């Protein structure tokens, strides 16, 4: 081996050992420095992704309208397009009112934020929001939507944060089942990249009397999630020799999520 290659290899091994032995705190510092360095492109990238998503949604909508209007004459067609645009605005308006109402009636102090990026990494089910430490968001705070639990804060930065979604295998939630004494641990399933992912509810008793359609709520145990937040609905139950497991459909449509709420603290 050439001396230069040998020196390079030794330096490389030293560097790799250094990287592999870093503590959680140092890793966080490296991540903060990395995201700070790329923050201008992160902002532009998120904006581009949001615009593309809106454009695709609009295109899809227009195509549907075109098919419907193909049999109707031009004047009526134009009026229908205008009407559909109004309906879209009305729907958006209703959604925002619903969100505002949610913020008013919730028992928690929450920060509203918009999803600006989805699945920025290959394997993890994560999303990014446009609110960060400057609005009081910290690590491991739970994230909700109008319909139920979304996930928890994984990486808060100055003005944006990353959410670990409930569909990720790493996001475990202690849950109870409506109308049943059963409690278990719910988590996402590895490699479930379909558009309708399901969650796996484990550690249920062997003879758990559960039915598809029963709702699943957080227990509040474990120190992360507040109690009584809707997580999803049971779709099927699998009985094993030692325990039972159930598949749960998330209450929140994570593919179509726009506004979320980060729980800062519980109101007393």
């Amino acid at each position: 081996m050439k001396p230069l290659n040998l020196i390079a290899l030794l330096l490389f091994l030293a560097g790799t050992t250094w990287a592999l032995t870093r503590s959680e705190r140092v890793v966080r510092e490296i991540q903060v420095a990395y995201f700070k360095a790329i923050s201008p492109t992160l902002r532009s990238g998120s904006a581009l992704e949001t615009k593309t998503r809106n454009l695709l949604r609009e295109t899809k909508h227009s195509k549907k309208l075109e098919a419907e209007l193909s049999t109707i004459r031009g004047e009526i067609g134009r009026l229908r397009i205008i009407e559909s645009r109004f309906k879209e605005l009305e729907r958006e308006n209703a959604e925002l009112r619903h969100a505002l109402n949610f913020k008013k009636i919730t028992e928690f102090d929450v920060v509203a934020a918009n999803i600006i990026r989805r699945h920025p990494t290959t394997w993890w089910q994560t999303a990014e929001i446009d609110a960060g430490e400057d609005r009081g968001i910290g690590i491991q705070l739970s994230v909700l939507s109008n319909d139920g639990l979304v996930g928890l804060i994984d990486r808060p930065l100055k003005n944006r944060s990353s959410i670990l979604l409930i569909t990720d295998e790493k996001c475990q939630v202690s849950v109870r089942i409506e109308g049943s004494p059963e409690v278990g641990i719910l988590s996402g399933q590895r490699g479930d990249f379909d558009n309708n992912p399901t969650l796996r509810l484990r550690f249920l008793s062997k003879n758990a009397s559960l039915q598809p359609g029963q709702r699943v709520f957080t227990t509040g145990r474990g120190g992360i999630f507040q109690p009584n937040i809707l997580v999803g609905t049971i779709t099927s139950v699998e009985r094993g020799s030692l325990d039972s497991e159930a598949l749960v459909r998330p209450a929140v449509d994570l593919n179509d999520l726009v506004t979320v709420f980060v729980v800062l603290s519980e109101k007393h």
Partner: protein
Amino acid sequence: MLRFNLSAVFLLLIAFLVQQFVPAFTGLSHARFLIVHLVFLCAAVSVATPTMLLLAFIGGILWDAHCSLATIVADPEVYTNPTESLRFGYSILLFTGMGFLMQGLSPLFRAGKWQFSALLTGVATFLYLAADYALISFVRGDIVMSRSIMRLMTFTALLTMLFSPFVFWLLYRLALLFDHSLYPEAGKNKRRSF
């Protein structure tokens, strides 16, 4: 040579910035174009081993900074089986492995046959993802192999490979700019034939 090597490092850093603009294709099981990996793989075949190791170190550490999740601190009495994560820095080893794989075809590349290296970028990307997923499965237990995982790995590899001629062209232009030859053997053969 030195200026070309530095430009390859610079190109890799730019790739990290460009990667932020690349969304996942939800219709293709969240497959995406991995520009960081592509730039690394193309550069790995066109530089010497020490520079490849430097690129693997930078690429791996920044990729882990981009991707790694925080450890969830929860009550161990409730969450008795926390989901394990890979250590920060493991991507350096994966990048290095793929770098050496690319360098295996460097004699062909130096002879001007870059097409084989372009095809190998797809294979290397697929192997990278497969190794990454195998490591995750190893630390978490249970090997789950679904159709959506295969689709993700295959389409990501194909999408990444499609852009490899462009990155090779970019490296070729950089080599010209810095008075460096990517295909020294091809030049020799030409001279011999004259």
